[in-house]
């Protein structure tokens, strides 16, 4: 942290020096990143849900996905997850200025747990931009919350070809770690392009953090708060996909599929292949608190 602060203050000094130089007319340069830089600026807000109106999530932005995945043809939602998603207020409610997605341990429709999963499909979809949410996460073995994006053509172009951008995933038994990933043809599930971000002196379950991606035509940057921890480009993905011999028969392996509108998903899964089931120490209910979701575009 100290080192980073030092770099920051050095940058400020540099800027101050440059500004001083400009004022004396020696060098003409700006401190602002211009459009030739790889960091895109997304300043125009295109969607925001501050979760200020008590009740169910705003139905003009969100719909629920209900069940255990069987109706969608993917029992256990493709990962052997244990929860049954409902639209009951017990599992998803807006109150106290935030959205609460609550995972409960209860027998319901043949499942041992209930939770909720809301999606913005057909209600808010966007290509490129900054997608961010301020979230306090649940905790405990078996909890698997996520804030993620899915390509809006999965019906015609089945996953993973339609693309997935996981802005934030987290496992409740690693309360200091989140990870950001992209999935697509030849790089998905266990072979997704993914990176962990670990807090050094804090946890994700006892305070809010901002999770964001900045997605431009040839780059997806992943942020926790103001820290950039991963930058994915078509080259990154091509390299990753080329490493897998399983991809030799795929003609689209490593294709960059992040060039169409995506929609937002927020959910708390319980159990499943990645986290494993809850154990005796897992405390229920568990809640993911979402203070806001905001999306920006470039213009």
């Amino acid at each position, binding site marked *: 942290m100290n080192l980073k602060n030092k770099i920051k203050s050095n940058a400020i000094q540099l800027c101050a020096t440059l500004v001083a130089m400009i004022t004396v007319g020696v060098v003409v340069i700006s401190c602002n990143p211009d459009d030739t830089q790889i960091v895109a600026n997304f300043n125009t807000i295109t969607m925001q849900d501050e979760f200020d109106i008590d009740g169910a999530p705003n139905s003009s932005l969100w719909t629920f996905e209900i069940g255990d995945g069987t109706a969608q043809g993917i029992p256990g939602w493709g990962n052997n997850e244990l929860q049954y998603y409902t639209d009951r207020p017990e599992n998803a409610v807006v109150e106290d200025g935030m959205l609460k997605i609550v995972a409960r341990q209860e027998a319901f429709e043949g499942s041992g747990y209930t939770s909720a999963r809301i999606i913005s499909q057909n209600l808010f979809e966007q290509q490129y931009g900054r997608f961010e949410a301020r979230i306090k996460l649940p905790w405990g073995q078996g909890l698997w919350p996520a804030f993620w994006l899915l390509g809006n053509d999965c019906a015609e172009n089945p996953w993973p070809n339609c693309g997935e951008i996981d802005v934030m995933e987290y496992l409740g038994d690693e*309360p200091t770690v989140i990870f950001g990933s992209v999935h697509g043809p030849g790089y998905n599930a266990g072979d997704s392009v993914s990176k962990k971000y670990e807090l*050094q*002196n804090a946890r994700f*379950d006892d305070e809010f953090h901002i999770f964001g991606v900045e997605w431009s035509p040839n780059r997806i940057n992943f942020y926790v708060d103001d820290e950039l921890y991963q930058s994915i480009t078509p080259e990154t993905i091509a390299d990753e996909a080329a490493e897998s011999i399983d991809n030799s028969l795929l003609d689209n392996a490593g294709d960059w599929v992040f060039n169409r509108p995506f929609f937002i998903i927020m959910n708390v899964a319980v159990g499943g292949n990645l986290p494993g089931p809850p154990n005796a120490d897992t405390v229920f209910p568990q809640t993911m608190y979402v203070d806001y979701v905001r999306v920006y575009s470039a213009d």
Partner: protein
Amino acid sequence: MKKFNLKYHIVFPLLGAICIVMVGCERGFSDDVDLATFPNTPDIFTDAPVGLTDEFFESFDPAVGANPNGFGTDDNEAFEGTTSIRIDVPTPTDPDGGFIGGIFRDRGEGRDLTGYDALTFYAKGSTTATIGTIGFGSDFERDRYAVSVNDIELSTDWRKYIIPIPDPSKLVQEKGMFLFSAGTESTNGAGYTFWIDEIRFENLGTLGQPRPKIMGGQDQMGQANVDTSVPIIGLTYTANGPNGSDITVNATPSYYDFETSNPFVASVDEFGLVTVDGPGEGGNNTATITATLGGVPAEGSLTIEAVNIEVISIFSDVFANVPVDNYNGFYEPFQTTLGGAVNENGNNIIDYTMLNFVAIEYYGRDNSGVQPVDITDLTHLHIEFRVNETVDASDFINISLHNNFTQPSEVSGVFSISGAELLSNEWVEFDIPLSSFAGLTARDAVGMMLFVTDGTIANLSIDNIYYYAEN
């Protein structure tokens, strides 16, 4: 209860008025005053002790079996640097003492640990043994803010251990830097060695989800006479560690802020000692003791009912118990029952499995010297049962009391409880008149109580067994 609420409403405005006056009188410290602060040195042992007493290691009393010889440093083993602490755990039969343990103390007036959230260290064992206790806060003087973790599993490679500080704001001047106690319970009596290195207080920031408990996290009830005292027990603090695992420590009462719901019945001091002050007012003779730790409400409570009774207690956490021979007589060959007294989350109970019949004996079996009890002047038996399985109406528990047990003059009486009076997995209290034990014609030397279920109830817990009479 309503009546009491009204009383509080009257009292609170008065308190408010007093507070205002007192605030008005309050004066700040003069700028000339230096408030005493103590060094906040984090390190306890790196390659050498840091700021500890010249003794470094102060052993527990050899008179209680502590072996003062197995402690030293080792220049051939270190997690970091050159040197670690080496502890040779003796065998139980070692003539110099059957276990090893003691404390490290700050050499000064104590340290300010308010800026840290954990004691951390690295340890490794010569074998995968389990260390009995590790902690801090014991200084052999007051042990006011002692914290300990039990059953620390060693690995044969270095591993980091974290002991959370329940409420660091209390530790403004702490002398007790480290404590350990180790025996060979986990190695069947075989001696072993373990090493400790890099002992220090740290501000990790990665401990979360604080969960303090009193009374083992349960809502417990008990009766107590006016002017007697009952300790709050089962004090633990659980935090979730950076690897997602819970870490539970034992904490002394001074970390907690206790509160009574009814000052007319009971008060509680900072050491968690509940004193029954009176019979209550307005017919309310109960007080519930709750606690917070660092502002977090503790799970569990103790509700005390103020009574005026004469008691002879066989098994209870509230009254002083008479000595007994056993809580399971193991009558062979016909008895199948297993179990006996256990600690269930800080609450001492008796727990039986495979029950057909079982005896609690207090007559002096095998010339133990235990005396039977004279309950001639007492009127009732209090007892609590929890059936740890499904209860059927046809189930039963026959309780028999035996006077002059094993003597030619033995007499006994039986009282029967049916399944309809019991609940599955819930405690049920019984106050049984001793006159209901038909056949118990004398009770000046009651020395055995027998519980017979004939297997109708195989899993049974029992608590709070005492004879009493209302005064």
